[in-house]
């Protein structure tokens, strides 16, 4: 007989083994914690030794760790920690949270996240007066002191009928459902005057004040998803019984929590002004292109992966999230109508990239011999294969084109042709042909390894991928495989069941269809074109410093790998990208033509079923053209054509970077994909 335990066992999800990527990232985290402790010598558990012996011990530990690090690099794990040898650094004691959480700083030491003292107000429900009337009096007096509203409003309580309660009573009621009679914080960061009134009042039984350290983000919504937020975990497994310690929850706060909680500061590569310019320009692009409703940008050093700016809109004020949050604010942050401000679209939102994908296709075609540098294609306005024809956007007829021309005018027919020529027989090449091989080597379909959690892998379509989703669809429809025991469905919408076709490859060649790429992945791919084939590992952390600014550790992740692209091919691709951005007839020449730096850039327009097109722009100014190389990728969700919505944002970012001001908002009008 099946009892309830068996039924619970039956619904145990069948999860795969963790990916090697996840394992490596976790191992890296652990190694950083280990390195932090080793670096904080002398250790308390070590026997008292003479200065000389202690020095030697430290060197031994350093040797062992360096050996481990080298091994890790050799086997491709890529350890992130480079140990410097901090002398004379007195640790506050590792393994224990410091009293003040370390700050997160921008490139030049400006504060992005700080900890400051504050006073919170708590209510202990068990100590409130017994009678409803007396309790109401306490709430009323407290609301008066705090200046909060006593008007009753809708108060949703999980698992109960919605009630109508005033603000403070609502917070207490919501807490009681979850945490019983545990004390509940009803106000944070109250003024010294309010604190004094509460402390001195004899008419507020059950109300207390508490001095705390408050996490604050001086710039509110600036890079909010990147910087992240902190929350609390019980330091003892028995919840509610013990003191709370602050722990990073998302973003850099989470990634570098070990160091921050020990009181050390994290200096990042973020450039505050660039970040501001990017967010402002992206917001402008969204406002100018209805129904655009979100977007992302990333700007990084194409030679070493240092991220100068990374933004995602809509965004949120991180100061709201670190405090006990009102139901309304929580709803605002999580309501689908708000379009998910907590998500970092630059690394978590993957989708087709439109024509910004074309340089990857070009590399694959050239390197595989499917196309030669000087070959000419006659673009008649349509491209047909197996009886199916596709057209350029707006049925443009571009005539005789070589590779450089094809990028400049963004001829889809030209690249449909390359997609057809690089398609491989799915029975003999289940992982696809040259296009998949090269896209993969550019990093498409895999996380970049940036020092932020939750990065999306995206998707690189191949015959094997299609077979897998088709099988999943069948299993879902029939209640078999992973769906064993589930009801049958007529359709699950996972895949349409057809096998891999040449059409799939043609779509991939122009960045449409099932390919999914994050803005950061595209930035890494363009960086490789800019730097001659190095796949950089993007990163935000520069170093760990103590409170007086002494560097304790440098964070200098190695490039993940180098790909070999014939320099002649790179030149050809570069020429095409430059012509697209800065010669007459180029699709974004009306945006960048008069820009005083040498820009290599490509617009893209990604098509979605049932939504307005997504606008993309990817560009760089390489080290051969400037002493301040930079790569920038921008996407505007439902922004329409790439040259129209995304490219003006990229221009303002470049302008801020090179000239210290964002300049004008210059929109293009190319209607290519």
């Amino acid at each position, binding site marked *: 007989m099946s*009892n*309830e*335990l068996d*039924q*619970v066992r039956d*619904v145990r*999800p*069948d*999860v795969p083994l*963790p*990916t090697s990527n*996840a*394992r490596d*990232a*976790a*191992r890296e*985290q*652990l*190694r950083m*914690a*280990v390195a932090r*402790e*080793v670096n904080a010598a002398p250790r308390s*558990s070590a026997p008292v030794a003479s200065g000389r012996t202690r020095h*030697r011990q430290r060197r*031994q*530990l350093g*040797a*062992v*760790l360096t*050996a*481990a690090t080298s091994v890790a690099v050799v086997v491709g794990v890529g350890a992130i920690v480079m140990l410097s040898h901090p002398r004379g650094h007195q640790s506050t004691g590792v*393994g224990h949270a410091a009293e003040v959480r370390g700050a997160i700083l921008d490139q030049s030491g400006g504060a992005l996240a700080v900890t400051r003292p504050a006073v919170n107000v708590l209510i202990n*429900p068990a100590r409130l007066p017994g009678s409803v009337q007396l309790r109401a009096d306490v709430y009323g007096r407290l609301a008066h002191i705090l200046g909060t509203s006593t008007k009753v409003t809708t108060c949703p*309580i999980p698992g109960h009928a919605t*009630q109508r*309660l005033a603000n403070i009573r609502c917070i207490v*009621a919501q807490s*009681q459902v979850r945490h019983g009679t545990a004390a509940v914080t009803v106000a944070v960061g109250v003024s010294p005057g309010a604190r004094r009134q509460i402390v001195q009042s004899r008419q507020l039984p059950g109300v207390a004040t508490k001095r705390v350290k408050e996490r604050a983000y001086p710039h509110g919504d600036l890079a909010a998803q990147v910087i992240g*937020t902190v*929350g609390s975990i*019980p330091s003892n*497994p*028995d919840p509610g019984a013990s003191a709370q310690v602050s*722990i990073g*929850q998302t973003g850099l706060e*989470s990634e570098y*929590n*070990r160091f921050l909680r020990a009181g050390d500061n994290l200096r990042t590569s973020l450039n505050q002004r660039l970040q501001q310019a990017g967010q402002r320009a992206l917001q402008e692009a969204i406002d100018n292109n209805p129904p655009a409703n979100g977007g992302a940008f990333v700007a990084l050093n194409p030679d070493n992966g240092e991220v100068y700016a990374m933004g995602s809109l809509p965004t949120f004020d991180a100061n709201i999230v670190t405090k006990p949050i009102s139901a309304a604010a*929580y709803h605002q*942050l999580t309501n689908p109508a708000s379009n*998910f401000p*907590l*998500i970092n679209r630059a690394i978590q939102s993957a989708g087709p990239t439109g024509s910004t994908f074309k340089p990857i296709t070009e590399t694959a075609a050239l390197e595989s011999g499917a196309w030669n540098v000087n070959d000419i294609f006659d673009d008649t306005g349509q491209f047909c294969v197996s009886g199916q024809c596709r057209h350029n956007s707006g049925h443009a007829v571009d005539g005789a084109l070589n590779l450089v021309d094809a990028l400049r005018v963004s001829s889809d027919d030209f690249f449909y042709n390359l997609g057809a020529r690089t398609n491989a027989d799915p029975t003999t090449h289940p992982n696809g042909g040259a296009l998949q091989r090269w896209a993969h080597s550019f990093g498409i379909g895999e996380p970049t390894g940036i020092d932020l*959690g939750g990065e*999306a*892998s995206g998707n690189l379509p191949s015959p094997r991928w299609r077979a897998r989703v088709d099988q*999943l669809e069948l299993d879902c429809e029939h209640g078999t495989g992973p769906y064993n025991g*589930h009801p049958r469905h007529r359709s*699950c919408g996972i895949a349409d069941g057809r096998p891999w076709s040449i059409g799939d490859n043609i779509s991939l060649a122009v960045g449409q269809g099932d390919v999914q790429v994050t803005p950061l992945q595209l930035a890494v791919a363009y960086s490789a074109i800019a730097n001659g084939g190095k796949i950089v590992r993007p990163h935000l952390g520069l170093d760990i410093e103590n409170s007086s600014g002494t560097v304790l550790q440098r964070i200098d992740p190695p490039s993940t790998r180098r790909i070999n692209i014939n320099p002649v091919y790179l030149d050809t691709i570069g020429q095409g990208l430059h012509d697209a951005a800065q010669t007459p007839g180029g699709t974004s020449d009306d945006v960048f033509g008069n820009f005083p730096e040498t820009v290599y850039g490509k617009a893209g327009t990604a098509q979605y079923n049932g939504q307005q097109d997504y606008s993309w722009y990817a560009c760089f100014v390489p080290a051969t053209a400037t002493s301040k190389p930079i790569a920038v990728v921008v996407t505007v969700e439902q922004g329409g054509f790439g040259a129209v919505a995304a490219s003006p944002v990229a221009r303002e970012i470049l302008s801020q970077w090179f000239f210290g001001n964002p300049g004008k908002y210059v929109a293009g009008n190319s209607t290519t994909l």
Partner: protein
Amino acid sequence: VIAWGRELLAGLRTIACADTKSVFGRERSDAAIIGDSLGRPEAFEAIFDRHFDAVQRYLARRAGTSRADDLASATFAVAFERRRGFRAAASSARPWLFGIATNLLRNELRTEQRSLSAIGRVASEAGRGDADAAMLEPPDLPALLAVLDADQRDVLLLYAWEGLSYREIAVALGVPVGTIRSRLARARVRLRAELGGRRDAARTDRQEVTE
């Protein structure tokens, strides 16, 4: 040269100790490795090697793969920092690690992170997220488990999904074995009521809001 040789020997000894096998070729216990790691922090990586997959999969079953990666990573970082509190009497570190993972998970669900998983679901419904992962989750699971309070749910899933014994769950959650027994019993009663359709009975014992 002598000093150099001594240093080399000491280095070699340090590396030899990092081996998870004892000199007799037997597997060293987790407790022994954690003991070592107090003096040599880098030894702790052996604990990671032994248990990371199990911890990550436990978290994946409860929070989905993408969140599980972060949480599993955090679990080992927290475990490393708290390793002084590991009780040597428990030879395996797994229950202890599951306990830390469970706490992190709870915190995750309690805070704004809940919205992220909601985002994941919505995003994949829109065809832009990881559709596979979202579809794999059996649809009736949340409903079935939602009737339990968090304490009961933790015990039930550690027992039924992860196969931990009462004693191991007690270690994981830091409460007496008797409490584990009673929590599991209450969880089963609640579930039986839900599954048997006696929803009214279950509803009446739901805690009333005092206001």
